[in-house]
């Protein structure tokens, strides 16, 4: 028996919104510790990894580990039926064919439940090394979203250069080129959420497809901060911490310049 209850139902909506454009189908693994999901996009360039700790739910029960093969677009459709203030409860049997979603309005006046058919999804399981990254950049998620959106207008590939001074996002395209540099905030500057912090062992420069970064910024509503982890010649990790419950991380393989 699996049961998970989220008072803030809109969180689930946001999470699915943040994933469904990148990944169409995914296995969500439910265990005592919580929910995890790992899925690559069809072209195996990016990977989305979701982690929700059991403590983050209002009620969480999972007697036996199960795997829920979900069509995310369909799950999104069902979640559209939930109001933003609704309490959402997920339920599944031990060997489930369906996932039950229950939506309760805050004043308990309206209770709806839906069953989503599950699928058998066979996926490659990636062994992601738990690696220490050379650069970790923490910045406001809105700022990152804006940079990605702006640069995508100019070109397809974005060069991210991280130095001690700051992070430079460069793009070049048919119409010209452009750079956005974000500097490390000084400690005194206002709210911690709005600060840009850079932890760095060595400078890193990598190329990435803006299209995918654009997909990642769909997670912006989930949190005010985004963390970029980079090391030379390995995929970047774009991590959106979700307050109190876990995080959603995107891995993106770099583009490689032959010259």
């Amino acid at each position, binding site marked *: 028996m699996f049961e998970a209850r989220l008072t803030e139902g809109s969180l689930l909506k946001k999470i699915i919104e943040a994933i469904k454009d990148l990944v169409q189908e995914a296995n969500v693994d439910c265990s005592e510790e919580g929910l995890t999901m790992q899925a690559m996009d069809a072209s195996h*360039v990016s990977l989305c990894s979701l982690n929700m700790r059991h403590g983050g739910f209002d009620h969480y029960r999972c007697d036996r580990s199960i795997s829920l093969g979900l*069509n995310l677009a369909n799950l999104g459709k069902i979640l559209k039926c939930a109001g933003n203030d609704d309490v959402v409860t997920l339920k599944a049997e031990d060997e489930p064919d369906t996932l039950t979603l229950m939506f309760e309005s805050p004043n308990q006046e309206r209770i709806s439940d839906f069953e989503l058919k599950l699928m*058998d999804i066979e*996926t490659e399981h990636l*062994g992601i090394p*738990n690696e220490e990254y050379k650069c970790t950049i923490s910045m406001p998620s809105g700022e990152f979203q804006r940079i990605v959106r702006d640069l995508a207008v100019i070109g397809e590939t974005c060069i991210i250069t991280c130095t001690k001074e700051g992070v430079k996002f460069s793009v070049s395209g048919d119409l010209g080129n452009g750079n956005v540099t974000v500097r490390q905030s000084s400690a005194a500057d206002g709210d911690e959420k709005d600060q840009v912090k850079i932890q760095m062992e060595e400078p890193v420069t990598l190329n990435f497809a803006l299209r995918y970064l654009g997909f990642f910024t769909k997670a912006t509503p989930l949190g005010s901060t985004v963390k970029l982890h980079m090391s030379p010649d*390995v995929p970047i990790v774009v991590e959106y911490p979700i307050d109190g419950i876990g995080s959603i991380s995107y891995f993106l*393989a*770099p583009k*490689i310049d032959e010259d």
Partner: protein
Amino acid sequence: MGVHNLWQLLLPVGRRVNVESLERKTLAIDVSIWLTQFIKAMRDDEGKVVKNAHIIGTFRRIVKLLFYRIRPIFVFDGGTPEIKRRTVMSRKRRREDQETSVRKTAQRLLLAQLKKQHILSGSTVLTGASGKNKKQKADLEPVGSLGAEAGFAAGFIPGAPEKAWDPPDAEVAGREEFVAGDGSQDARKGAEKVDGHGINGDGGSIRQRSAAAAFAQALPAAASDEEEEVEWEEEEDSGTDDVGDILLEDDNVDVMVLASLPPELQKDVVESAKRRQRMLSRQAFMPVAGNPALYSQAQISNFLKSSRLNQKVSSLREVLGDDGNRDEGGIGAGGKDQPESSAGSGTWQGTEEYEDMSRDLDDEAALRSRMRKELRDAETVSQEMREDIMHLLQLFGVPYLVAPMEAEAQCAVLETLGLVDGVVSDDSDSFLFGARAVYKNIFDERKYVEAYRAEDLERELGLKRVDLVSLALLLGSDYTEGVKGVGIVNAMEVVRAFAPREEGEGETEVRGGKPEEGLQHFKAWLDGFDPLGDLSLRADRKLVDDREEDEAVDKAGEEGGSTRRRAAWVTQEVEAFHSKHKSARTRWVVTERFPDPAIYRAYLQPQVNASTDSFTWGVPDLDGLRVHLAQKLGWPVSETDSHLLPMLRRMQETVWQSRLDSYFLGYQDNVKFAKIKSKRLQRAVADLKPGGSIALEKEENTESGQEGAETMEIENARKNRKGSRQGGNARLCEGTNADVNRKEAQRTKALSPSKKMRRVQKRKKSLGQCSSSSGGSSSDEGEEREEGSVKGNGRGIAEADTRVPARLRGRRGGRGRKVVILDDEEASGSEHMAEE
């Protein structure tokens, strides 16, 4: 192509690899069977080769390779090794047979078509029907000139000279018109019948008509003078009709009397009798057409009459058949009439065949497809085609080389020399020549490529290169016919029993310099059939057992003291094999030279070009290609560009997108797509691979356990999976058992409980007795049927999982899996039958 059925064995170690993960790899492309493939596969509706199919095919494939930024090196076949020539010869013989049968099928096709036209023309006349059938016939007869008829008719006789089949259309046309004219009378009658409910079906009238056609054709033979044909027609009308009346009216006419008449006259009599019968029946029908009761009465009486007549005719035919000599004599006496007469008799035969054909008239489509197939198999590859392809490669700037002998061998050597990262070949020979990474089906439309690694073969199947060659000797390949009666399961068991593992053996190192030794023992075993020998072998074994026990007790081994020493090669495995397959000894047929060391040599030391010169790739010559394709294929520039420009754009990109696979996904993490289904084969495999048997046993235990045990399995699998995800590389060490378990668990999970029970039962069944296919309980039937339906498609050892990645759970009908199974029931069903 390659070793027979070897791919089926290799399937379970193959992995599904994304085409994109091959990006930037240098691959040796084995082109040796491409041309044959194109010629066979690229056909139009008629079954003819598409013009320059090989150019289109190669062009598409090169574009695909370059689009994925694979760096290909094309390898062509050079000469044919002496040892292969024999096999090639037998192939050629087969092809010649095919050519003959193409001709035969063509003949049958023509016949079928004629038949169709016959019916069609019959109905045409029917619409414009008029009473003057006879006149029409008379008009037509000169058209279908007798000589032509003779030639035509001769064509129906099996073994007739081919010449008869080249006749100008006129002859056929003549015949057709003739038939049409003749058929009209019947057709009219048929039409009347149809008007009045048409109880006498088409089949009957067809036969009547064709019989009539035969008679009519025989008529000219009766005429002494061809010039007087028309006159004679009239004469016949008045004369023979009377005789016909006799036949018809008088039930007591002796068939023998009739038979004693000259053949020409017989035919006339029968013909006119039939005609009279038809006329009578028409007369009988006319007045009663308005009254259903009377009408049906008339129908019945007419039917009885005509069937009586037919009986008579057929008995006449029998008499004639019995007394064929007389018939012949009659013909011979005719002198000038001879050709005509033979035409007549030819038609007799033709008519019979005709009737046969009417049975499978609907099979014309089937005939056509057979024709297509035969045409396809008869086609050959020309040198010119090879040169076309080489020219194309030059235009693309792709390097190629012509191997001294076999292309597969050259590809493998390129890999060994480190010049390429892998071999693209659909030929399982590649492994025998020493290839380590083979990519198959790379040109399919699917997104995934099948990848096979020699390491996997060794680790998971326990098959080294030498063993593969041994398998080739048993199964048959390009170089050898193989052992008759030995299939893949038995072959694996032979290899297991007679090629024992030796520790510390090098990869290509040949066991003791004598790779054939194992199979020599096999042959010795096979040849050593004598019941006494079997007994003595057993006695030996017992003796040795005793001795071993003794040794264990008093540690004083009496070395060689025994008078009867068993041969060194009679190991435990051999004896296990012996007891299992002793009846097969008489059934398996090996050739004189088996095991031919030359075959081992041919595979292990092939003649290749071992130059280490590196290859370079040029830039595709767009203009050159445009011109070339316009010339050869008539493609406009736009067509060429639509293929080439996307590819060129990809090639020109200096920045390329890497994929996560190359960072996080080891080769071992790629999903396998097939699984060994046969328990016997699993066991044979398990014994070959080091430490494998234990794992298998464990697996069997869980399988034969109860449902609880299975859920445990799921748990375990889950843990494995979790561990693997964190562990990254640690997963590689866990090996494939976890992998298999997980997949098994997932599959089990997808089944509903009741179905699962059945599965368990079924497993038990297949674990227990092999020959229990009859013991299927009714609850098993559903499943049986489900799988059985696919079994028919093709027998395999492995279960190929070609389903789409996702499917709805708990839906029985939704099993999009294609199962090619040869599980124990079937495997041993067939093999045991052979052995018992």
